[in-house]
């Protein structure tokens, strides 16, 4: 029963501490909110980009252009051996006619290319889809196939994905560093608010010590104030993120980007991520409060 009373008094004292300087408390919550919003937003978009790149990578193919003078039997043999290779998911033989049809579909303005040149300039080819999206495996496979005598050249259709992935990584790191700096600023604000509250009730703390209140009775509200500010910041961030995500999806609905937005933003943060953010922010707020209060809260 005494523990319940103690807990009740700690919660009451923590809320009272925050209420002493409501504007400062609000600013601390907003500072934490902005930092966590960026951090969580980065995680959400980062996950979407990774899923998208992975999806594109799994669809990326290797175009194997065949020599004009390669005998049909040799080409058929090559196609069969590639189809039997477990590193290759799919092999398609593209005839010169099909290549021309695909070209006309992609470039309608140049549909009469065979008429202009007097013949179909496009070579036969094999289109390979690797079993793994791993770029190293794909490159090794391209090198291996390119060495075959019936092969004229090989085009690996994933350079742009790798470039995007590299850009994504740079973006990820810069956002992460920026978010961490903001998070540090948010935590510093929490520390300042807690310290201000502690200074404001210096006489009360002195009296509590004088009458033999346990050190935990002085320290616990301080730590709880920090944890509450952190948790409130995380709640603001999660709520803001949901709002921005829904607004973005609604705004892009019906546009060509709708599918991409839906793929990347998906269902938002899952319950586990939300809980992790709340718990992490509370713990960080608690630590910031403890550091800011220092010995003032216990001695």
């Amino acid at each position, binding site marked *: *029963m*005494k523990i319940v*009373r*103690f807990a009740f*008094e700690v919660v009451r004292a923590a809320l009272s501490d925050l209420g002493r300087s409501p504007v400062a408390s609000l600013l601390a919550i907003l500072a934490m909110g902005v930092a966590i919003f960026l951090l969580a937003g980065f995680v959400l978009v980062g996950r979407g980009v990774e899923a998208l790149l992975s999806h594109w990578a799994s669809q990326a193919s290797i175009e194997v252009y065949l020599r004009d003078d390669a005998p049909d039997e040799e080409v058929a043999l090559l196609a069969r051996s590639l189809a039997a290779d477990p590193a290759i998911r799919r092999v398609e033989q593209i005839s010169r006619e099909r290549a021309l049809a695909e070209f006309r579909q992609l470039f309608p303005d140049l549909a009469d290319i065979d008429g202009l040149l007097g013949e179909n300039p496009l070579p036969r080819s094999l289109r390979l889809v690797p079993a793994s999206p791993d770029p190293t495996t794909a490159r090794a496979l391209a090198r291996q196939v390119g060495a075959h005598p019936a092969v004229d050249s090989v085009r690996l259709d994933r350079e742009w994905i790798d470039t995007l992935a590299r850009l994504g990584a740079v973006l990820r790191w810069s956002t992460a560093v920026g978010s961490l700096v903001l998070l540090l600023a948010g935590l510093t604000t929490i520390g300042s608010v807690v310290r201000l509250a502690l200074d404001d009730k210096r*006489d*009360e703390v*002195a*009296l*509590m*010590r*004088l*009458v*033999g*209140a*346990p*050190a935990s*009775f002085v320290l616990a509200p301080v730590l709880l104030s920090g944890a509450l500010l952190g948790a409130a910041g995380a709640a603001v961030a999660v709520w803001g993120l949901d709002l921005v995500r829904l607004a973005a999806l609604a705004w892009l609905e019906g546009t060509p980007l709708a599918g991409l937005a839906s793929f990347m933003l998906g269902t938002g943060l899952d319950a586990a991520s939300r809980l992790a953010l709340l718990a992490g922010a509370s713990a960080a707020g608690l630590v910031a409060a403890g550091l800011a209060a220092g010995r003032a809260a216990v*001695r």
Partner: protein
Amino acid sequence: MIVFDRVTKRYRHSEPALDDVSFHVPPGEFVVVTGPSGAGKTTLLQLIYREIAPTRGRVIVAGMDVGRLPFRQVPRLRRKIGIVFQDFRLLPRRTVAENVSFVLRALAWPADRRRERTRRVLEWVGLGHRASDWPAELSGGEQQRVAIARALAAEPRLLLADEPTGNLDAERSLEILGLLHEIHARGTTVLLATHDRELIERSGARVIALRAGRLVDAGAAA
């Protein structure tokens, strides 16, 4: 209740504030500690409630060796002691009743017991009717009575009063002395630090006299 055994307290680079002081206060006694300013009265009280630790010697309070008391045990010692200061040290943003119940709240007393004890102790010092007033609305004597009520709220076994009448006129000082006598009559050990001669004479208590940190008279223990 209190044993000082050859206690010396020296602050850095200065003469000792207390020098080789020994005395004994049995439970339930009323003792006056006197001496001119700088004699070491406040240092002596601070040693008792472990605001400071002795440089040498032993201070025993309620069976606890205060000098060797680990920091986490200090609250246990202080719960046995009530302290009254010359400047009252009331919380200005809390009412009279809140000032008293604050102590009980800090010690996690249940709300109903807290209310009852606050009411009783304020009535006992004659301020039941001022419970909802602010400290600034009270006279000096009334403020000191609130401070005494607060010091007694948690039912301490020992009351330390450090120049409690220093800011009061003669009449109010005698009122406060009367209260301290009543507290003593109820079985609480009282240690009153004062340099007020009239108060000392009227107290009828054993006198421990200090001068420049040295004990010049320990009176006779009852």
